[in-house]
């Protein structure tokens, strides 16, 4: 099998009929193909979630707007939130982890290739279930309706009485199914990293991307499962007549909040830790220096993972917990700022004195650093419980978490696309279009999310479908909406860049960035078996050792 595969040139593969090609992709268990499937799937859902965001922004563009009805507006913000978290950011991060982790640790595939495929198709099926609710939400006999209970689906909104039909069930099942997919992938990532490292790749020589994905996968095991458990309880309530969240039978709506946020807050770190991982690989390469403070980076990541498991109730300051609980969650939330600050200083320390190359991946990483810092600062503001009583459920909160997810995670992701796409397709993304993408997105992002803080401070609540004129919100909301469209144009530039460079981009070669980790030692795109012979490493930068045999890192580590 393997000797055959070596001799097949790329040209022959493209001559296959498209049915065979489709069959290959659908039945694949190769970690690189599954990684690309994850990424493409996430990009498709990014378009859906993006259209929903634009509908929300058009509706809020000025006061007393009638672009959509209140009911449709509720569906849009519910679907936007659910889609973006569970079917865009999670799968795209899993896609990169799938693609990169085996290559970076010198393995030929994930530990369980078939489990890997199974997990992907579970997640994909979850996304289809969620969007099928547009057709089947009221049962197949009536007009469809999507879930409209908000992405955190507080009880008792999800009770049968308040959520008739099946839209909430599609929401529940979609998250349950994709949650099982996430758990499967995480088990795979952990087993791959612990059991398939190439000779010499000790834990303290692993690329930081592998380390951070290991921590992320561990968090998925502990943090996604409470959501699965809560979804099972919700299904028991809705289908078997249970009373978990039924206040009329003594059940508690607050318990759902706890269960949801025990998942919900660590989820933010599950999303952001892989973004940290991208930065930790890209910043050193474009600063031409090894990462500053490698062990501290690992320690800070593990520290973030631990602390983040005890901060969830800062989403619930306005619920009416006692002052001890409020103080505890305020303190732990602020404490997360310490290891996160360490990371930011480490990236700055890496750049310090380096010969910085301002290529597109690096531009996005710099954007991340700046914006993630601001997002962290507004986070600290809301960690103070009394101040949060003012801000909770306002657009200030919306601005804050979009600053984290768009300004932080999405920027890091774009950086990762520009950095690793040459490896995946064998062709460089256009630098010129990349700069257009970057600057348009920066301008659109700041127009939208900087300005969005202000109506929040002025008291504009989130999730309202329209508002009265004369409150000083109109102009601000108009600017926010215009910014959203500029971001959409930037995304179109990005998609055009992906498509056009796939066909006529410059050939990348094995190592276009002069980088140091193992994925750049094989061809672009890598062969199905990744490495003809399993590499052996002696330091954290095996390719540096290879390129500079007179002065290898292994002498100093």
């Amino acid at each position: 099998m393997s000797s055959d595969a070596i001799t097949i040139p790329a040209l022959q593969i493209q001559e296959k009929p498209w049915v065979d090609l489709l069959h290959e992709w659908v039945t694949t268990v190769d970690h690189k193909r599954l990684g690309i499937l994850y990424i493409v799937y996430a990009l498709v859902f990014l378009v859906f979630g993006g259209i929903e965001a634009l509908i929300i922004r058009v509706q809020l563009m000025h006061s007393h707007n009638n672009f959509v009805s209140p009911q449709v507006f509720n569906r849009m913000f519910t679907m936007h939130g659910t889609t973006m978290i569970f079917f865009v950011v999670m799968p795209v991060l899993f896609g990169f982890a799938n693609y990169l982790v085996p290559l970076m640790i010198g393995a030929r595939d994930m530990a369980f290739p078939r489990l890997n495929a199974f997990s992907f198709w579970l997640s994909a099926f979850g996304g289809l279930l969620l969007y099928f609710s547009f057709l089947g939400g009221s049962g197949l006999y009536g007009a469809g309706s999507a879930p409209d209970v908000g992405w955190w689906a507080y009880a008792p909104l999800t009770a049968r009485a308040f959520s008739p039909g099946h839209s909430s069930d599609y929401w529940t099942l979609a998250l349950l199914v994709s949650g099982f997919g996430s758990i499967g992938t995480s088990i795979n990532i952990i087993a791959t990293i612990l059991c398939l490292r190439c000779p010499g790749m000790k834990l303290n020589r692993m690329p930081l991307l592998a380390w951070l994905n290991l921590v992320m996968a561990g968090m998925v095991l502990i943090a996604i499962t409470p959501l699965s458990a809560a979804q099972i309880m919700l299904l028991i309530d809705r289908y078997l007549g249970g009373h978990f969240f039924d206040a009329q039978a003594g059940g508690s709506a607050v318990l759902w909040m706890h269960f949801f946020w025990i998942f919900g807050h660590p989820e933010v770190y599950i999303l952001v830790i892989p973004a940290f991982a991208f930065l930790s690989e890209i910043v050193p390469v474009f600063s031409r220096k090894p990462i500053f403070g490698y062990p501290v980076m690992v320690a800070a990541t593990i520290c973030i993972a631990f602390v983040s498991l005890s901060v969830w109730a800062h989403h619930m300051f306005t619920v009416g917990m006692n002052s001890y609980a409020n103080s505890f969650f305020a303190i732990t939330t602020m404490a997360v700022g310490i290891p996160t600050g360490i990371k930011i200083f480490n990236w700055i320390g890496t750049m310090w004195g380096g010969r910085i190359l301002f290529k597109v991946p690096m531009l996005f990483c710099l954007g991340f650093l700046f914006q993630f810092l601001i997002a962290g600062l507004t986070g600290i503001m809301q960690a103070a419980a009394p101040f949060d009583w003012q801000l909770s459920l306002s657009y200030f909160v919306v601005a804050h978490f979009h600053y984290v997810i768009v300004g932080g995670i999405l920027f890091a992701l774009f950086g990762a696309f520009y950095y690793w796409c040459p490896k995946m397709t064998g062709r460089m993304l256009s630098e010129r279009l990349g700069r257009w993408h970057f600057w348009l997105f920066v301008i659109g992002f700041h127009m939208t999310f900087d300005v969005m803080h202000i109506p929040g401070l002025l008291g504009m609540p989130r999730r309202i479908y329209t508002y009265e004129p004369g409150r000083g919100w109109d102009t601000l909301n108009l600017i926010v909406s215009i910014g959203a469209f500029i971001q959409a144009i930037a995304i179109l530039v990005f998609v055009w860049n992906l498509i056009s460079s796939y066909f006529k981009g410059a050939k990348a070669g094995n190592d276009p960035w002069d980088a140091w980790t193992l994925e750049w030692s094989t061809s672009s795109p890598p062969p199905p078996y990744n490495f003809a012979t399993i590499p052996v490493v002696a330091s954290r930068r095996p390719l540096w050792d290879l390129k500079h045999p007179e002065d290898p890192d292994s002498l100093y580590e």
Partner: protein
Amino acid sequence: MSAVASSAVEIPPAWTLPYRGKVAMASLIIAESAIFTIFVVAYLFYLGKSLTGPTPREVLETPIFFTICLLSSSITVHFASKSLERNNRATFLALWSLTIILGGLFLFGTGIEWHRLIYEHGLKISTNLFGTTYYSLVGLHAFHVSAGLIMLTIVLIFGLAGQVHEDQFRRVGVLALYWHFVDAVWVVVFTVVYIVGR
């Protein structure tokens, strides 16, 4: 190209990594523990909060015999995989079958108890909060016992067909690990439901 990476450095003398099956099962156990934790928390949180009867004190009886069955099946499965490692296949099959019988007995015990609760005391999942939390927690555990029994039975069928050999002891050990977890969870559920909860 990748081969050159190895030219510069020597292969470290002893390079052994953990068995992937064991690592994966340990990860699954961590994830499952989190699920059970949430159900246990819900059970404890709703203790005594039911608006109507029956209450746990009125209707629950401690299933001591069936608990002994399940806990001793952990011992049999341990020695079953040990005997496979020593290539003692007759002992393996005997102990493995005993494990399935003990697990099946436990499941039968759960069935009897549920039958009694439903038909004698009228306690259903929709009766009150106790019913909801009790059937969910015990049912989640019984589901895991059932899944385990199915997997154990598949191995037994292969074993009877002569397809399970000593070099597969690590794979069988992964299943044994899962079975130990199912038993350990029962210790927690038993403590919470039959000791603390009454």
